[in-house]
């Protein structure tokens, strides 16, 4: 078990180093933070002063070493936009993002899994076709289009809900629904196909032939075996809790981590981008680790192999 955990942690550390290095190179080679943050009309001497203040005139390799050394010592740097500590800047946005992504995840689970199971249990029926039609629609409509459609309907036409901002729970409804619908559609499709595969297995037929009630067959034999691919997708969804709302936060003017990431990338605000990437990588790695452990719990064969 320790070896299993150690290998995965080592793999996670290598992933994070690669992510950080790649982001540094791409961001620094594709834009000058001084020019972008100071604006197109800034006098040349102001641009020069900004570059000097932030060490942007040094050779790139030296900037990279300085930056990497700071990360290793736990210093993620300061935002070039206003000089604030990057960790503090990101940390204060996390609650806003989680206020959207956690309820959206619950909608995804609460809608997507039952819909997928229902569709599989009624294969080729009207229910199956209706559920899959909705799932395909939810899956294929981009979130920014769905978000704007919901705004047009519920904010502009009906006036029931606000179109954007972060003033209270009513402002969170449309972004949560936007994210929830798309994710539920994905989960429904995966759950359905996993269930269909399991329902065709010999052990399901055996259990039915032995006279086990169908409900018990589904709950006791089909669902646990169909859970593995579904848990993988849920793992990805949990992993993207922190930065999975980039588009929705922009459409609904929700000041979370996603919007901070967009602004930071546009401004080449390296410290903030890196801080978010580290956070995302850590969340994703943790989620993957939990998923790996869940595999063992769900499938005794995997547990025995690991042991």
């Amino acid at each position, binding site marked *: 078990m320790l070896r299993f955990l150690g290998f995965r942690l080592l793999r996670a550390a290598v992933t994070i180093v690669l992510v950080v290095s790649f982001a540094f190179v791409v961001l620094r080679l594709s834009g000058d933070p001084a020019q972008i943050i100071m604006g197109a009309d800034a006098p040349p001497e*102001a641009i020069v002063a900004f570059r000097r203040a932030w060490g942007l005139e040094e050779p790139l390799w030296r900037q990279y070493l300085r930056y990497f050394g700071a990360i290793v010592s736990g210093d993620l740097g300061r935002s070039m*936009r206003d000089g604030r500590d990057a960790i503090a800047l990101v940390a204060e946005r996390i609650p806003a993002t989680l206020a959207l992504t956690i309820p959206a995840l619950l909608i995804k689970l609460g809608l997507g899994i039952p819909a997928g199971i229902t569709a599989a249990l009624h294969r080729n029926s009207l229910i199956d076709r209706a559920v899959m039609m909705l799932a395909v629609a939810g899956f294929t409509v981009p979130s920014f289009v769905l978000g*704007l459609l919901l705004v047009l309907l519920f904010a502009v036409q009906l006036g029931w809900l606000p179109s954007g*901002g972060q003033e209270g729970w009513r402002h969170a409804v449309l972004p949560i629904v936007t994210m929830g619908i798309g994710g539920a559609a994905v989960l429904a499709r995966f759950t359905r196909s996993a269930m269909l595969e399991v329902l065709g297995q010999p052990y399901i037929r055996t259990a039915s032939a032995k006279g086990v009630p169908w409900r018990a067959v589904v709950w006791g034999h089909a669902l646990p075996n169909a859970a593995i691919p579904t848990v993988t997708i849920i793992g990805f969804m949990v992993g993207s809790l922190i930065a999975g709302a980039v588009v929705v936060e922009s*459409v609904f003017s929700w000041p979370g981590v996603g919007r901070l990431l967009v602004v930071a990338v546009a401004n080449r605000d390296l410290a903030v981008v890196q801080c978010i990437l580290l956070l995302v990588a850590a969340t994703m790695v943790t989620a993957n680790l939990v998923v790996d452990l869940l595999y063992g719990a769900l499938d005794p064969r995997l547990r025995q192999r690991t042991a």
Partner: protein
Amino acid sequence: MLSRRSALAALAAPALPRLALAEGDARPSITVAVQKIANSNTLDIARENSNVGTRHFACYTEPLVDTDWITTLRPRAGLALRWERVDERRVEVALRPGVRFHNGDEMTAEDVAASFGPERLFGGEAGVAARVPPDVRAQGRAVFPGLSVEVLGRHRLRFVTGRPDPALDKRLGHRIGVVVSRRSLEEAESWLAWARRPVGTGPYRVAEFRPDNALILEAFDEYWGGRPPLRRIRFLEVPEVAARIAGLLSGEYDFACDIPPDQIAEIERSRGFEVQGGLIANHRFITFDKTHPQLADPRIRRALSLSIDRASIIEGLWAGRTEVPRGMQFPFYGGMYLEDWPQPRFGLAEARALVRAAGYKGETIPYRLLNNYYTAQTPTAQVLVEGWRAAGLNVQIQMRENWTQVLEAGPTRALRDWSSTVFIADPVSNMPSVWGRNGSHPATGEWRNEEAFAAVEALETEMDTGRRRAAMHRLLTILEQEDPAYAMLHQAANFTGKRRAIRWRAAQSFLMDFRPGNWDV
């Protein structure tokens, strides 16, 4: 215990009309949806020297000399009651007495000296001045070169420059020359803390600033210009234009800024809403890198300008709501405006003749383009390319993501977009910073002309208006005809959607004026 009535009231509260009336204060509160509140996450206009910062800075801080942004664009008395030129290097200013800062202090000459001194603009080695960021210092030096301030009395000062400056009195109205409380500078725990809540004299004070989210201003009832008409102004950051328009039409926002021209008709189709605004003191143009092999010959650059159908661009992409200027100047320059300077012409036949005479063989001329950084930038570029093709010029668009990529030197840098805003009623507002020896274009290496540099210097130091006009004429002749540095497109325009019932006039600037006299419902 929650009664049924209070529960119903709580449910209904969010649906109440937008102009919420506070108990005891009948003035309305409004929400203004903007694309961006501040690029730098600060509210000191010397740091946030941008179009987006211009939108709100005058609500809480005011320049020493006011500008009538709504009608004449001319300077007028504000915090300074009178200003008088003493000689070619000195201007004396009499301050308006009784002006209060948001912290209750009375504005004195000491505050103005600190606002135009090392403590706020130019920086220094010790004390408060040591905290001023290097880029703010550079901005200060660029706008107020060699400036020093002498306090003559509680409400009198003298501004002195190191060399003759014909526009010194006008510079006192520049947006970065706002007056802030000296005590607030000294007492702030850091420069950032101060710049997030500057203490000025404006009609509204900063109540809360949540970067990348919202800026909330509250009425400052001791404002020298009278009781502000609004109780609260909330600037809300809504990056997507579709979301801003939806919020306006649903009644959540009272104003939606940065409306593209093609959305004007859509908004005004809804009864109860209108789009205000129009020309602002900004020119849009295409600049030339004359070091590019295809642009070395000035005849090609003239042909590029001649083959631009500006009328079609304005009609088709701007709904006819902007115009072609008479060169890089504005009528509100007064005595410095060359009223007989011609508008750029559209002449395809003449352009074709110039292309032939220059021996151009159809080599590619790259055109680096950002995706709608400027209003209607990409469709404008597509129209331009077709016009150039009709003149026999092979221009190819190359999309770029940011200004670094646009400005980067190399064989693909030839044409690019640019704009220039003026902040005071004189050509020194932008000519030196764009076309002067240390200006933005010579700094990139795209264009240099010693005679033009000399003309710019004359504009900056020559005191005689006749000789300054001659220098301006010579400069425009070089820039637009002899050794073209750019092809003028049109004057820029800015549009704001609002509820029709609000009687409010848009400024000829990005600035939004919510002072007494510019609001009624």
